[in-house]
């Protein structure tokens, strides 16, 4: 029973939502937005489970004095501190007259967001510049026809999307040839490849969804396949 009920719920939910696409009438026409509301609310509940899991795993490290436990402690401290700041700011804002949001400029939470969260996020993201460099040096070799095509397309798009190659040929030919070439590659061969992948994905998604709705695929409820 513990496996059958979830599988039944999956199938019924899947069927209802698939059919609702074709029915504009209430409540089917609204089913997507209702489901959307529900998912966001479940997510808001689930994030607490996540936070507790994070604390639990970190606490295990700390209590057993595993390697790097001080860093686990740092995780717990910064998590709790952020929660405290957020809730104090949030409720203060709701009770203030006029009300303000915990995200408004001037709140401690906004300070934390801008100087800690944003700084860290942007920096981590920007590290990709370095990884792109090392990947280009290491892996971009014209080893066979396929790799060569990848390389050539990459080369022209990279050089054409900024006025780099065009500046180089400007003394001889005053025409943005490479910029046009990059556009051409993006508009035609790139579109062709993307379209083939997109159509394939659509069929893959349909097939996967169907397997789930039909109950053939049931690993998501801990059922494996039948």
């Amino acid at each position, binding site marked *: 029973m513990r496996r059958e*009920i*979830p599988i039944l719920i*999956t199938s019924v939910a*899947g069927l*209802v*939502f*698939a059919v*609702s696409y074709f029915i504009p009438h209430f409540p089917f026409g609204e089913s997507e937005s*209702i*489901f959307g509301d*529900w*998912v*966001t*609310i*479940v997510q*808001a*509940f689930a*994030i607490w*489970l*996540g*936070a507790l899991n994070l604390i639990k795993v970190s606490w295990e490290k700390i209590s057993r004095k595993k390697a790097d436990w001080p*860093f686990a402690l*740092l995780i*717990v401290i910064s*998590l709790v*501190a*952020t*929660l405290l700041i957020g*809730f104090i700011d949030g409720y203060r804002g709701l009770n203030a007259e006029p009300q303000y949001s*915990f995200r408004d400029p001037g709140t401690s939470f906004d*300070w934390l967001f801008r100087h*800690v969260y944003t700084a*860290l996020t942007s*920096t981590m993201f*920007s*590290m*990709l510049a370095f990884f*792109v460099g090392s990947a280009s040096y290491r892996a971009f070799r014209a080893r066979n026809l*396929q790799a060569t*095509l*990848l390389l*050539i*397309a990459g080369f022209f*798009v*990279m050089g054409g999307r900024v006025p780099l190659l065009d500046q180089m040929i400007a003394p001889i030919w005053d025409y943005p040839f490479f910029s046009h070439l990059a556009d051409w590659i993006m508009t*035609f*061969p790139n579109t*062709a*490849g993307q379209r*083939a992948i*997109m*159509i*394939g*994905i*659509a069929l893959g*998604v349909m097939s996967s*969804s169907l397997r789930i*709705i039909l109950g053939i695929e049931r690993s*998501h*409820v801990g059922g494996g396949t039948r």
Partner: protein
Amino acid sequence: MELFGIWIAALLTLGIYSFLYKDNPVYKATEAIFVGVSAGYWAVVYYFDNIYKKFWEGAVTSDNPDYWMYGGAVLGLLFLTRLFPKIGWISRWPLAFIVGATAGLYMVIYFVTNAMNQTASTIMDIVARNAAGEILWMDTLGTLVILVGVVTGLVYFFFSKEHKGVFGTAAKVGTWFLMITFGASFGYTVMSRMSLFIGRMDFLMSDWLHIIK
């Protein structure tokens, strides 16, 4: 406070970059702060935006309550039964519901947007002309390329047919198109990655150190 903030941000920035040299305690500390703060950040944002603003104000204290919202709250509470090992199995119900609804929803949406509309745009006049009726050769070549690329690309994705003979050749041409697509995406992406780094360097050099304007 602002100046203090800029210093904190600058030091954290350098802490992350130290990973490029190798994994080290400074990076580990920065990473720990990042994980903790971000998990807390989202918990706070979700609480106020979803539970408070959307559910509490929208369905409980509102003069015109949206009763459908209670469905979400029920699913959410069922989900939290995971916290109690004895009744934890109930949490599979909301999970099963979300997975099923997603499957049903996307089955059709993906088919319409990705398969039907993309096929429809592939069915087009091969000879491209401008408004005056003159033939645009580069665009005509382009539409031919799209046609060949889509057909051979799809052939590559056949699972139940061996890649041999004409079929194999088509599949091979398909991989060429995929490779060009990947190269183009890669080249295009490089630009974005560099932009991010430029943004960061701009912060360090102008906001923090004031080397440049």
